[in-house]
């Protein structure tokens, strides 16, 4: 093979990275109880599983539905709008569900907004941009069609 798949960089990075992982694992064990360290390990692998087998399939299903149901010319703006909306909902969901307020009910400065309204406002901005993009595409498409390209 002309270019080896694993260069010398890999064989240098591997022991260095492994040592850093080891430092983290030992530090975790030394600074917490064995049960707490096991809980962290469970959450770490759980984070893998939650992404790979819950979040990603849901995103794939939504993406496939958009690809199947919508005409091709409007798919990109709609998918972009869905990506941005999904991420913003992830960022705000602890506030939206009131988890912070439940932890410290005496502290009114944690999650102080009406997050239903503020989230809808942020999503309205996202979809206004997506709609503007969609309309631009529609106008260009009409123009192209009138000019006889289709």
């Amino acid at each position, binding site marked *: 093979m002309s270019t080896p*798949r*694993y*260069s010398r*960089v*890999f064989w240098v*990075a*591997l022991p*260095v*990275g*492994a040592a*850093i*992982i*080891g*430092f*983290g*694992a030992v530090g*975790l064990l030394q*600074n*917490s109880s064995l049960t*707490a*360290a096991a*809980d962290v390990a469970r*959450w*770490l*692998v*759980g*984070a*893998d599983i939650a992404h*790979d087998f819950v*979040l990603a399939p849901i*995103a794939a299903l939504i993406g496939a539905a958009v*690809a199947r149901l919508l005409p*091709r*010319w409007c*798919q990109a703006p709609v998918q*972009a709008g869905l*990506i*941005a909306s999904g*991420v*913003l909902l992830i*960022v*705000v969901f*602890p*506030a939206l569900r009131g*988890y*912070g307020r*439940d*932890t*410290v009910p005496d*502290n*009114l*400065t*944690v999650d*102080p*907004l009406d*997050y239903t309204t*503020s*989230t809808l*406002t*942020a999503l309205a901005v996202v979809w206004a941009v997506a709609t503007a993009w969609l309309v631009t595409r529609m106008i260009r498409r009409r123009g192209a069609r009138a000019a006889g390209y289709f």
Partner: protein
Amino acid sequence: MAESTTPSVFTSTLRDERTAALLGVALGVSFTVCFVTGVLSHLIQDPPSWFLWPSRPAGLYRVTQGVHVATGLAAIPLLLAKLWVVYPKLFAWPPFTSVAHLVERLAIIPLVGGAVFELFTGLADTHLWYPWPFNFRTAHYWVAWITIGALVVHIGAKWTITRAALFSARSSTETPPPTARTSAFDRRTFLATVFATAGAVTVFTVGQTVAPLRKLALLAPRRPDVGPQGFPVNRTAAGAGVVNTARSPDYRLTVDGNVRRRLTLTREELRTLPQNEATLPISCVEGWSTTQRWRGVRVRDLLERVGAASDAEVRVHSLQPRRSYRTSDLNRWQAHDPDTLLALEVNGQTLDIDHGFPLRLIGPNRPGVQQTKWVTRLDVR
């Protein structure tokens, strides 16, 4: 060498090496920024003997911790996009084709798990939400090392392929094979969407620390102008269990330890001492910050009064009966900085009890958890 292949159900043309490489570089930069600022914050809070954190510039910690939280939030869309692009590789068959390939893939478990873990626990912590059975700070800190270690292995494994994807002329003009179904999204549009989303996350949250943008902070857990006397609180007097002791007429400040004369002062006596003003931020580790005008007694003046050494350090004790952060330390630079105050007032008003009435520590370039409230004792060392 046998190649492993991914299932043919994944048809999107976005799943190419150049997209993965570009997102990988962006993630590598953001995780490095988060790691460096995070380790720094950890060192400041738990300083080893070789680490002496300066008291200047006054707003430095506000910047490093603001950057830590803002970068972590902006990394959420980058990480999800990257995982989306490489998702078919999860189902590659055969699962590995060499020992090196097996090692590379095993390192993906702490890499992906650690990255999702760090962003999720960090996000939840900014809302003071702890849905797990372990200590946040311990876990977030040590898993950061595990994640960065796995990232080093991953960068090593992807070094050649990433360089080829980013710099070779062939890949930039690469056209998809004629059998592939072209996506409605081309690479440029997809990447523009991902980076625009990261920008939107920043715009809608960064106002928790950048005051002029506070009205845009629609998705942030804090508003720097909302709270008693116009700014937020992390732990209330009720939550700390100090409502009665802080308001008691028996309240005293004691200055003792390694001193020539021990000093005990009532609140009225503190008011008669020379007062100084300082405009300083409270910079919370959770990523919000707010600048206020404080007025009170210089710690330096009190140290002089009790005859402490010129390089004395101070442990500041709160009235808080229990829980973490009931004390904080001032190193020799912080203790002698002219802006390190025991504040009695903020913006011309007596401190609200939730901001530490009767007396709170406020010093330049310190994390919010170290700006101890309801101060009752300075232990000079």
